[in-house]
């Protein structure tokens, strides 16, 4: 195997490792909210620096390979998609941190009955992240397209949660701070789904060479 191919494999492995860390961070951040689990929240905070460091190192490796190997065709698509996925993974890590910060806020308020069905939305968003990374590993375009199809469902759940929380705030003004925290969590989950969608779009570019961002595919001449 050529040196370049070995380096591409290194980058692929590192992105997958980073993806694993990010998936875990998201899952733990959601548990921290739903179970009011401070230990899970702390673990997410501890892993943030590692994710950030990996983003820098992966960027460095990809840019070096672009500069020195002048890749073309699928290698070029892998490196450009890899750079974007790397950035999306780091943002996903940040969003997990945002959720954890809301979890810590909620921990300071008295424990009450669940306000909204956050676990269902979280499951959908987490599934999208998992499937987008799975599609990256398997170079599976169909799986990537299934992620794109899920984004609207997450948006709908988010809108429902906003609606429900607004009703609670009108009924029980004393619970406004708690409701606002949940709204932020829902917003961050919605953003997580958006980044999973970005990753799936990059997988389609990698596998099929098509650009589906912003419905670009439909705009291209047949």
């Amino acid at each position: 195997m050529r040196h370049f191919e070995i380096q591409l494999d290194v980058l692929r492995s590192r992105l997958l490792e980073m993806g694993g860390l990010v998936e875990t961070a998201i899952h733990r951040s959601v548990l921290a909210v739903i179970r009011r689990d401070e230990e899970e929240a702390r673990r997410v905070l501890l892993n943030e620096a590692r994710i950030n460091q990996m983003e820098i190192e992966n960027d460095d490796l990809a840019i070096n390979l672009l500069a020195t190997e002048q890749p073309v065709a699928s290698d070029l698509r892998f490196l450009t998609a890899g750079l974007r996925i790397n950035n999306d993974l780091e943002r996903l890590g940040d969003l997990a941190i945002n959720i954890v910060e809301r979890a810590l806020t909620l921990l300071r308020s008295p424990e009450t009955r669940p306000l909204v069905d956050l676990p269902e939305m979280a499951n959908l968003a987490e599934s999208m992240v998992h499937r987008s990374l799975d599609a990256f590993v398997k170079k599976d375009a169909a799986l990537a397209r299934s992620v794109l199809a899920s984004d609207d469902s997450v948006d709908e759940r988010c809108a429902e949660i906003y609606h429900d929380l607004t009703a609670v705030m009108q009924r029980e003004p004393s619970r406004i701070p708690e409701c606002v925290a949940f709204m932020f969590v829902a917003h961050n989950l919605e953003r997580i789904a958006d980044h999973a969608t970005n990753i799936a779009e990059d997988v389609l570019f990698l596998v099929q060479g098509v650009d589906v961002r912003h419905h670009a595919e439909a705009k291209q001449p047949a």
Partner: protein
Amino acid sequence: MGATSDAETICPTGKTISSEPQGPLPATAAKISVRHLNFFYSRRQVLYDIGLDIPEKKITALIGPSGCGKSTFLRTLNRMFETVPYTRVEGEVKLDGEDIFGMSVVDLRRRVGMVFQKSNPFPKSIFDNVAFGARVNGLKNRDKLREVVETSLRRAALWDEVKDSLRKSAYSLSGGQQQRLCIARALAVDPEVILLDEPCSALDPIATAKIEDLLFDLVGSCTIIIVTHNMQQAARVADQTGFFLLGRLIEFDKTEVMFKNPSRKETEDYISGRFG
């Protein structure tokens, strides 16, 4: 192996490829049309059933590993192969719809100029090198000759560097300047097509960049076909690229498609350095 239609052939990997023009038809008119072109050195066949359309006033790059037939193909386009004994060609090559094998070779080579891998200035002055073709064509008027030389050297982006030393030997120029002089010499007879056979292979990156910029300037007035081993050069300069392998045209498409998302695995493997 099943029978193939008249318009199809089997490539070395066993896949069926069409001998009709590869890739999408050019949006602009075809300057050169090639159909069912076969080429032989004695009994050895080196080109197999080539079919493609070279669009007018565009840059077309031909790539492929050594010995794949790309330079031989280039040399069929102005019948330069006829200088080599025991060569034979079959098939059709048309320039603006006219069969090149039926026209005068002198007329063909005036319309289809060529620049070679190694710069080959004549042992004459810079001026006489550029004026050579025009003189052969019967131009004797000194003022007219001077005008042809200046115009050609300007088009070849060499005028500013040599305007004060036109009577010096062409051999006094650097390698990159000599190559641009050869391009100026080709331009002096106002060709419609310029064939370039690895014109930058012996040049440093600065001289290479000058030649590439020159191609961009020239393509507004003539059709350019360049054979290159430098993948990045093809990617930088060409509007469309053809990939040759073992004497066959494997893929011919827009350059951005060839380098971003080629449709043939052989192309992908070659341009990404996995063989060849």
